[in-house]
């Protein structure tokens, strides 16, 4: 067990389809300065910087090199974490490790992505050069493969999936940073949007956004001194599965990496009934069906009952366990930042600074990250250090 560490500040840019008003380093700077302001710190207070980003999506090799100074990396300990879709949560976990190791007291993590500048599908086409690349390049078809199996296995319906899209885009209206805010979206509209890859409709997918998100981690002594209500990291677990599509067993239906990561994290904190014990969850939902599958993988319900949670309103803002008050990845997806945003939103709920998206009395928050079925991160944040 490492030393205690907490999140004491967060900052986000406004996320949208194109932030043409700033270059990528300036986007990072915007999030970093917002987090410093939130933590009432200056850059001089920060000991180390961790950056999270998808390599190559924006046509910059070594994005940490080109954007690090935007996070105040000048003359500091700084490096980048890149683990695909989980980059943002893995970056946050790395920030936590820095403090938990006892070697650093104040660490800033910045996740960022500027999808508008590059070619995410091109970046995805730079995966394994022997097997996948020539057949299953790009993300949407890859998701769709799993969704069609999941529907067949578990009997999840199109309507249940569409309800997740409606929930996400409505919640996003309470989040001033969110990209897709759609207060009047209906199930019918979701299902009438074009099918991108069977059986996935456009409005069931996450968008591609420009945005950055920064988090400040602090040691116990500093957190207690500087933050009235720190968000303590109680567990941070990462699991990697096989990478070749043909080897990942039952993908969405099982999501073994998420299941295993959650199991380990719950054990650390002593969580027995996640649906009852967590006050809020910010989970990485790349598309609607995934959110329902994650309900099952995270133990909110039994396998095959995920659709019933959305039907019953259990995960709505006024339900037993609000899932993604921020609108989630389905509403906002600057991919290298998407995981960092989940962690920041979880922390924000504990800080009690969630504004219109605040869930009342949050003491325990669940946060997850996801990378193409192969990688999962799970963090548990708490208002109490132990």
């Amino acid at each position, binding site marked *: 067990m490492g030393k205690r560490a907490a999140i004491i500040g967060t900052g986000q840019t406004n996320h949208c389809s*194109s*932030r*043409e*008003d*700033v*270059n*990528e380093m*300036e986007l990072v*700077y915007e999030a970093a*300065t917002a987090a410093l302001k939130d933590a009432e710190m*200056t*850059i001089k207070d920060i000991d180390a910087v961790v950056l999270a980003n998808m390599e*190559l999506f*924006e*046509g910059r090799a070594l994005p940490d090199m080109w954007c690090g*100074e935007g996070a*105040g990396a*000048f003359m500091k300990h700084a490096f980048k974490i890149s683990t695909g879709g989980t980059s943002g949560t893995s970056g946050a976990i790395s920030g936590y490790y820095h403090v938990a190791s006892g070697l650093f007291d104040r660490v800033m993590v910045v996740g960022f992505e*500027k999808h*508008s*500048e*590059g*070619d995410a599908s*091109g*970046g995805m*086409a*730079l995966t394994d*050069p*022997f097997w996948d*690349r020539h057949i299953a390049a790009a993300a949407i078809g890859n998701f769709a493969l799993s969704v069609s199996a999941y529907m067949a296995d578990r009997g999840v319906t199109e309507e249940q999936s569409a309800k997740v899209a409606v929930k996400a885009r409505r919640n996003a209206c309470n989040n001033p940073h969110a990209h897709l805010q759609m207060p009047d979206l209906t199930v019918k509209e979701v299902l009438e949007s074009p099918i991108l890859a069977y059986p996935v409709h456009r409005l069931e997918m996450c968008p591609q956004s420009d945005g950055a998100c920064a988090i400040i981690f602090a040691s116990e002594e500093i957190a207690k001194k500087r933050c009235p209500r720190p968000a303590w990291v109680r567990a941070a677990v990462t699991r990697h599965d096989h990478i070749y599509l043909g080897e990942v067993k039952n993908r969405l239906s099982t999501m073994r990496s998420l299941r295993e990561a959650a199991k380990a994290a719950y054990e650390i904190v002593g969580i027995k009934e996640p649906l009852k014990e967590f006050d809020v969850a910010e989970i990485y939902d790349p598309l609607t069906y995934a959110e329902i599958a994650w309900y099952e993988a995270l133990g909110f319900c039994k396998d095959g009952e995920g659709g019933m949670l959305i039907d019953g309103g259990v995960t709505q803002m006024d339900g037993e366990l609000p899932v993604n008050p921020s609108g989630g990845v389905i509403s906002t997806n600057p991919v290298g930042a998407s995981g960092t945003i989940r962690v920041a939103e979880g922390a924000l709920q504990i800080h009690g600074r969630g504004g219109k998206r605040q869930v009342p009395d949050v003491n325990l928050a669940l946060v997850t990250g996801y990378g193409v079925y192969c990688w999962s991160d799970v963090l548990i944040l708490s208002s109490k250090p132990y």
Partner: protein
Amino acid sequence: MSDHVERMVLQGKVDMHFSYAAGKTASRFFVELRDRQRIMGKRCPLCQRVIVPAQLFCKECFVETDEWVEVGPEGTLVTFTVVYHKENHHPKEAPLAYGIIKLDGADTSIVHFLSETEVTKLDHGMRVRAIFSEERKGHILDIECFRPV
């Protein structure tokens, strides 16, 4: 069965396109170059350095720069090289000369081509002057090169 197999090596190529937003500060730098042939820096309110090309924020003080300052077009050659070997990604045919130039009035330097490719005619500390391109597009190559004065 023999252990000998033909060694398979696959070729890879991915066609990708990018568009890089410069941001408001670099945008103004480019517009000044294109429309007025002026090289602009911005001053940091804390350390007082004039940073060139102009930047939104001072990377050392982590505050926004606030005062626009015209610098150059003359300056001092801090260092230089002449490249003789060929590379795919070289912007010009070899031999090509480039250097680091500290423009008059600036506290940081810029990297640019030199018109002179004869090493013996280049010197550290020599005075150079920006030569602007005839056709300017709002790009760092709106300065064609620096020429010894």
